[in-house]
C-alpha cells in the first residue's frame, strides 16, 4: 500500500505538484496522533455513549473563557451482581460543571479543593503556567467530584491532571500526565495514585505509518504490562492495531466511503482468556444529524442518533439491544447549548 503511482504526464503542472508523492522526505514527517488516541476514529464511530433513560444537558457560556454546565440524568443503572441476571436500579442525579479555558495568561489558581492530595504541587506548577490553561470540574449529587486540568507549560510540553473523588473510602483516584511533543514523535509519562506509573512513546515512521510502544506498572495490584501499537492512515482509511502483554489484541479499520459516510470495524481478542469480540458499524454524518449504528458478535446491536432540531438544540436517541442477554436499553435526551 505504500507504493505510489506517478501521475500521467498530461495533467497540468499544478495538479501534478499537488499529487506528486514520489520522494518521501524522512526528515519532515508529520507529528503522530497521541498514543491513547490510536483507535480514535474507530472509537468515535463504534462507541458512542449509549445510555438508558433520560438525559438533559445544558451548557451556558458566560464568558469567552468560562462556561457552566448542568446535566440531569434519570434512568435505570446497572448494579453489578453475582448472578447472571442484570439488576437495574432507577437512579437520578444532577451534575453541575464548570469549564475554564484560558489561552494566554499566567494565573494563580485559588480553588485547590479540587484535588485533595498533591494540591501544593498543583499550585506551584500552575503558578508557573505561562500558557494555555484549561480546567474542568464536575460535581454530582451523590457526592462524586471530578476535575481535569490541562496546562501547556510550553509549546511542546503539556501537563494534564485528572482526579475523581468519591465519598467511599479508597475509591478516589488521580493521575498526572506529562506529554512532550517532538517534530515527529510524542512521549508521555503518567503518574497516578495507587502506584500507577506508565510511559509511552510514538513515532512517525513514514508519512502514513506510525509505531509506538508503552510500558505500564500498577503498584497496588502488582501488575505490569508492555504494549505496542501501530497506525496506518491515508486520506480515506485508518487501520490501527494494538497488542499488550496483558493479553489484549485490538485491531480496527475505518474506511471513509464518502464525505458523509464512514464504515468501521473492530476486533478485540484476549489471548489469555480466549475471548473474541468483533463489531461492525457505520457512521453517517449528515447536515441535520449524526447517526451511528453498530452490530456486534456478542449479539448486541445498537444505534445512536443526534438530531439537530435548531441552533444549539440537539435531540439524542440511543438504543441498545442485546439479543443474547435479552437486555434492552433505550434512551432519549436533549442537549442545549453549544
Amino acid at each position, binding site marked *: 500500500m505504500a507504493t505510489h503511482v506517478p501521475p500521467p504526464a498530461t495533467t497540468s503542472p499544478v495538479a501534478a505538484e499537488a499529487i506528486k508523492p514520489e520522494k518521501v522526505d524522512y526528515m519532515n514527517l508529520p507529528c503522530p496522533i497521541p498514543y491513547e488516541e490510536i483507535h480514535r476514529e474507530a472509537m468515535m464511530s463504534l462507541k458512542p455513549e449509549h445510555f438508558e433513560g433520560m438525559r438533559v444537558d445544558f451548557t451556558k457560556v458566560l464568558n469567552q473563557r468560562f462556561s457552566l454546565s448542568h446535566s440531569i440524568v434519570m434512568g435505570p443503572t446497572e448494579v453489578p451482581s453475582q448472578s447472571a441476571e442484570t439488576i437495574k436500579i432507577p437512579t437520578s442525579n444532577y451534575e453541575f460543571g464548570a469549564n475554564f479555558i484560558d489561552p494566554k495568561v499566567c494565573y494563580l489558581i485559588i480553588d485547590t479543593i479540587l484535588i485533595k492530595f498533591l494540591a501544593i504541587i498543583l499550585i506551584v506548577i500552575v503558578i508557573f503556567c505561562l500558557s494555555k490553561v484549561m480546567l474542568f470540574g464536575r460535581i454530582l449529587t451523590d457526592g462524586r467530584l471530578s476535575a481535569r486540568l490541562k496546562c501547556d507549560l510550553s509549546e511542546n510540553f503539556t501537563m494534564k491532571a485528572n482526579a475523581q473523588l468519591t465519598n467511599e473510602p479508597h475509591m478516589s483516584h488521580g493521575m498526572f500526565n506529562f506529554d512532550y511533543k517532538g517534530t515527529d514523535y510524542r512521549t508521555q509519562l503518567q503518574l497516578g495514585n495507587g502506584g500507577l506509573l506508565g510511559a509511552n512513546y510514538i513515532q512517525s515512521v513514514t508519512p502514513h505509518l506510525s509505531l509506538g510502544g508503552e510500558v505500564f506498572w500498577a503498584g497496588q495490584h502488582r501488575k505490569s504490562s508492555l504494549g505496542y501499537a501501530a497506525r496506518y492512515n491515508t486520506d480515506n482509511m485508518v487501520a490501527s492495531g494494538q497488542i499488550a502483554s496483558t493479553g489484549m489484541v485490538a485491531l480496527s479499520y475505518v474506511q471513509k466511503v464518502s464525505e458523509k459516510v464512514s464504515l468501521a470495524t473492530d476486533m478485540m481478542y484476549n489471548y489469555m482468556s480466549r475471548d473474541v469480540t468483533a463489531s461492525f458499524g*457505520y457512521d*453517517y454524518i*449528515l*447536515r*441535520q*444529524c449524526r*447517526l451511528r*449504528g453498530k*452490530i456486534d458478535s456478542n449479539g448486541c*446491536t*445498537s*444505534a445512536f*442518533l443526534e438530531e439537530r432540531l435548531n441552533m444549539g438544540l440537539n435531540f439524542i*436517541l440511543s*438504543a441498545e*439491544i442485546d*439479543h443474547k442477554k435479552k437486555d434492552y436499553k433505550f434512551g432519549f435526551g436533549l442537549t442545549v447549548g453549544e
Partner: protein
Amino acid sequence: MAAKKSSSEGVLSRASSTISESPIVYKGKQVASDAGFVAKKLLKSTGKAAWIAGTTFLILVVPLIIEMDREAQFTELELQQASLLGTPAVAAPQK
C-alpha cells in the same frame, strides 16, 4: 385389552384392529408425529430468527432510511431555493 381378545371377537372388529395395528399404520403415525415435531421446532426457530432480524432491522436500518430521506428533502429544498432566488452561478451538487 381388545387386542388380546381379537381372536374371540367378530369379523369387523378383527379387521379394523388388524388395520390399526399393522406396521404400516404404526410407521405412518410415527412419521406424522416426527414431522409435527420438526415443523413446530422449525416454526419456533423461524419465529425467533424473524424476531431477531426484525428488531435488528428496526434499530439499524429504519433511522437510516428516515434520515436519508430527510437529507434528500433538505437538499431538494435547497436546490429549489437556489434556482428560485436566481443564483445561476451555483452549480447543482453532483451526487
